[in-house]
């Protein structure tokens, strides 16, 4: 019977030319925007790839050089994203894409879209996720709020119930019809992105785990929205009241609540400004050894210990280059400082994310926004993972350079000593490994729980509403 109600609803839509035109316009918009966003993302990634190759060739093309000089020359880490990032750009617009990695200091990623866009940064980038999270629900509201209410107000529902169909079948038929349409739009979006990527000759298929999670979460979200629309039109009785209530909820859920929750998270767990963070780092760093300062007290103690250990009087007589060792000591202290400050920053960020996730329990629109970004690999947690991987790589690189400086054959004070180009070429290039999709589930457990609870709540409201319709309470 539910299938009958579903096929009736779909048939009614197909035969309604105005509705069909509206759906056609939305599908066209989705296809155009998805194709454009995909092509634009691919263009950006290609430019990034070219820049990464150029940076590597510059690294390798330096020829023979002093290892510490190469630590200052530095290297670049480019933040790559997977195929799903073409559908959900996430917070990438506000995060830097390129991280400059060098000795002695940890930099922050640069070249974010928001800085380059200036005042236009207020308008976030248009991507398929925005349409799926904002416009598809709006379309479901317009389609669903009026359909069931019209059936009830006209007496069609009453006539149908007398024939023997259950109110549950009718209501779930409406929900399934809305849900089916939303899923078709999701499929259109994913297929468009894959076809565009394949046409442009790049990797088109996301990892199966991520694609399944992406589809599942959107499916769950659309179920919540479809159920909510039908539940509102059941409980609020008139089409007008249901439409008005749903539009108010839509505005609050998509525009108001996300801003309120991020403002609240910032007030409860304030983050330091970039300047304050850098100043605090510098202040902590000033308390430690400075590899470039020959009069540094701590390094002096280390130098004396080395002289004693090797039973020599001058550092030049040591069997290794003390400068390389000093640089590494300096580096390790810097790493500790960074771990401490960045750890605090990350802890505050996660506190913010947890609070926002808690608020998202009340708002499935926020839940899907967070989950979509997480699965697409474009949320803050993935950016953190990128920064941590880049930092691990930087530490390994600098340590290798310092070791070469110390033990490669030079003597202390000999800054003109150079390692061969083959040494630098042998150092591996930074490779970002996207975290397993499990990271997304772990970091967004509250949102998953929220969507699941909302889906159950909608089911219960519809079942309860159907029972009330069956006995006429919500029918007449």
């Amino acid at each position, binding site marked *: 019977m539910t299938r*009958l109600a579903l096929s009736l609803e779909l048939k*009614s839509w197909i*035969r309604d030319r105005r509705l069909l035109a509206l759906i056609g316009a939305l599908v066209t918009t989705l296809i155009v925007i998805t194709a454009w966003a995909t092509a634009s993302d691919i263009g950006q990634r290609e430019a990034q790839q070219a820049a990464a190759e150029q940076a590597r060739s510059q690294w390798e093309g330096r020829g023979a050089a002093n290892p510490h000089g190469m630590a200052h020359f530095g290297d670049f880490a480019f933040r790559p994203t997977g195929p799903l990032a073409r559908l959900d750009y996430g917070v990438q617009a506000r995060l830097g894409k390129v991280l400059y990695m060098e000795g002695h200091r940890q930099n922050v990623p640069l070249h974010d879209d928001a800085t380059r866009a200036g005042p236009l940064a207020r308008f976030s980038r248009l991507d398929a996720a925005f349409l799926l999270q904002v416009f598809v629900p709006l379309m479901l509201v317009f389609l669903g709020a009026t359909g069931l209410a019209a059936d009830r107000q006209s007496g069609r529902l*009453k006539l149908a119930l*007398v*024939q*023997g169909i259950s109110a549950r079948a009718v209501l779930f038929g409406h929900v399934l019809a809305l849900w089916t349409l939303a899923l078709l739009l999701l499929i259109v979006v994913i297929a468009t992105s894959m076809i565009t990527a394949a046409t442009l000759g790049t990797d088109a298929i996301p990892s199966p785990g991520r694609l399944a999670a992406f589809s599942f979460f959107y499916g769950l979200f659309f179920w919540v929205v479809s159920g909510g629309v039908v539940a509102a039109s059941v409980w609020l009785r008139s089409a007008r009241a249901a439409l008005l209530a749903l539009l108010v909820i839509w505005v609050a859920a998509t525009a108001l609540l996300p801003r309120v929750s991020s403002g609240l998270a910032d007030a409860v767990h304030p983050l330091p400004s970039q300047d304050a963070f850098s100043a605090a780092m510098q202040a902590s760093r000033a308390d430690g050894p400075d590899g470039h300062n020959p009069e540094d007290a701590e390094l002096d103690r280390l130098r004396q210990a080395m002289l004693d250990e090797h039973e020599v009087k001058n550092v030049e007589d040591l069997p290794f280059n003390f400068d390389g060792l000093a640089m590494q000591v300096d580096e390790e202290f810097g790493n500790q400082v960074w771990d401490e400050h960045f750890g605090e920053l990350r802890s505050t960020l996660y506190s913010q994310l947890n609070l926002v996730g808690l608020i998202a329990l009340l708002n499935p629109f926020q839940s899907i926004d967070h989950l979509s970004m997480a699965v697409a690999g474009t949320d803050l947690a993935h950016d953190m993972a990128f920064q941590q991987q880049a930092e691990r790589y930087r530490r390994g690189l600098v340590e290798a350079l310092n070791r070469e400086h110390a033990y490669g054959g030079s003597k202390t004070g000999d800054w003109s000593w150079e390692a061969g180009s083959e040494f630098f070429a042998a150092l591996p290039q930074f490779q970002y490994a996207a975290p397993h999709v499990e990271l997304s589930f772990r970091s967004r457990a509250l949102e998953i729980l929220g969507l699941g609870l909302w889906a159950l709540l909608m089911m219960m409201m519809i079942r309860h509403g159907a029972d009330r319709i069956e006995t*006429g309470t919500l029918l007449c």
Partner: protein
Amino acid sequence: MSMFEAKSVVRRFGEIAAVDNLDLRIGPGQLFCLLGANGAGKTTTINLFLGFLTPSTGEIKVGGIDPAADPRAARKQLAYIPENVAIYPQLSGVENVDLFCRMGGTQLNDEEIVALLTRAGLATDHAKRPVGGYSKGMRQKVGLAIAYARRSKGLLLDEPLSGLDPQAANEFCTELKSICDSGAAVLMTTHDLFRAKQLGGTIGIMRAGRLVETLRSQDLDAHELERLYLHHMSAPRKDASERRS
């Protein structure tokens, strides 16, 4: 056993008793026409039998089943035609009949459906056009066809003649008589005294929720029925406190 039975039924909306102490029994093969002005409680009575309203006090049975307790079981025995048959405007008459039949678990082929629509008085060339272009009377005929297809033991008709042309109304009355003769119980509300008399069953006059008169149609002619109806309609209204039981 009566198909439709109401025992001392009262249905209140707030302090107003829309149906007040109604006693009614309609057995198989019997036709009961309920006359009354707008707001007399006729549609409330139909809704009580359909299980869309529950009695405040008293007892309602449809084929021995309490529709308030098990509305779906009670409705299974019924066909219903409302005053305004609301069907799906994007679908044709044939598709609408097919759809509503399938809702009741009945599968008919196109020929059977066209035959039902013809029996209801809808011209064959209209049957496959979208209902959105139908007049009220044509929609009413589709409603009749849906009711015919049910082959129910009980028919609840809420002003089914509304919007029908005289010829279609006459054909409907003839059809209704034959349905009744085949053993179905019929409860029909109407404003049409002439058709109520023509149908030849029992006539009840309802006023302010009360069944104030019950008579057999053969006991009086149309003029006497009209005079009696107008007498009851023009009698002084009881005030609200009297209507509360």
